[in-house]
């Protein structure tokens, strides 16, 4: 009974979406806002990667909201999964020597790769979110390979809070010097060099630290009790 009602609902939704999809043209025209961002992007923000300048400078306030949603999800997960009394202790067998040494060898290389991606966010494809996800994968490797070690909770909470704080403080400094929240008050320089584009690299470094330590903290909370 439930299956028949489900399939009927699905057919109605499919017909509705299908009839409106044939009216959207594929691959023909750009929006006016997109054309303005491509033509004026380097002059107004100074970064060579247009997607970075849209995410950080033109729509920076939406990125602040998204960072807040990530923060709330991590706090919610930590609050739901608290230890409530009896812990079941499972015997953890320690890993072999080859696995342990291999994971310890790979971990700094993965951290350097992630840091490279979010520092060069305004020159090449990349940025804060991608670099943060790669750093969290490095921490996941440590949890799977060397099974006894955990990251210290104080360091991860400190990195996460400092990242968010730097973002908001730079926004307020922009209000002080430039006239509106998150305005670009540092000198823009020439495009395609490392020290260019004003506040964009600083914000992406803060976002990279915050997202990396947040995702690693989520995995730490999930593993903890078993």
């Amino acid at each position, binding site marked *: 009974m439930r299956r028949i009602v489900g399939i009927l609902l699905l057919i109605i939704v499919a017909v509705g979406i299908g009839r409106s999809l044939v009216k959207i043209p594929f691959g023909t025209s750009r929006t006016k806002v997109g054309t303005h961002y491509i033509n004026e992007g380097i002059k107004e923000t100074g970064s060579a990667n247009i997607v970075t300048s849209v995410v950080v400078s033109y729509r920076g306030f939406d990125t602040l909201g998204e960072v807040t949603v990530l923060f709330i999800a991590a706090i919610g997960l930590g609050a739901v999964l608290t230890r409530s009394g009896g812990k079941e202790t499972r015997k953890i067998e320690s890993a072999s020597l080859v696995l342990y040494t291999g994971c310890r060898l790979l971990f700094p290389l993965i951290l350097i790769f992630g840091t490279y991606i979010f520092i060069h966010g305004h020159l090449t494809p*990349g940025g804060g979110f991608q670099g943060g996800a790669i750093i969290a994968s490095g921490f996941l490797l440590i949890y799977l390979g060397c099974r006894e070690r955990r990251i210290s909770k104080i360091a991860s909470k400190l990195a996460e809070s400092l990242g968010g704080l730097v973002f908001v403080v730079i926004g307020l400094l922009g209000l002080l010097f430039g006239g509106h929240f998150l305005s670009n008050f540092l000198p823009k320089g020439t495009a395609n060099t490392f020290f260019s584009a004003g506040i964009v690299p600083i914000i992406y470094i803060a976002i990279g630290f915050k997202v990396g330590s947040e995702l690693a903290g989520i995995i730490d909370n999930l593993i903890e009790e078993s």
Partner: protein
Amino acid sequence: MIFVASFLVVLMLVGAVAASIFRDLISAVIAAAFVSLVAAILFYLLQAPDVAMAEAAIGAALTVAIFIIAIRRTKRYEE
């Protein structure tokens, strides 16, 4: 070029149907990660390298990890 895109789209739909049919939950999670990986390749063919990098790092590595940790703390087979 159009045959490569059609072949990848058919592969992605087969993976999504497989994720809904399997009864072993870990096999279903691996099929969902395969769908994410082929979607990352399609993002690259649509000339969006930032989004392809984000989808490959987050959808194919971190999602699988948190699903498998959650399945380990509950049941493995669907009833």
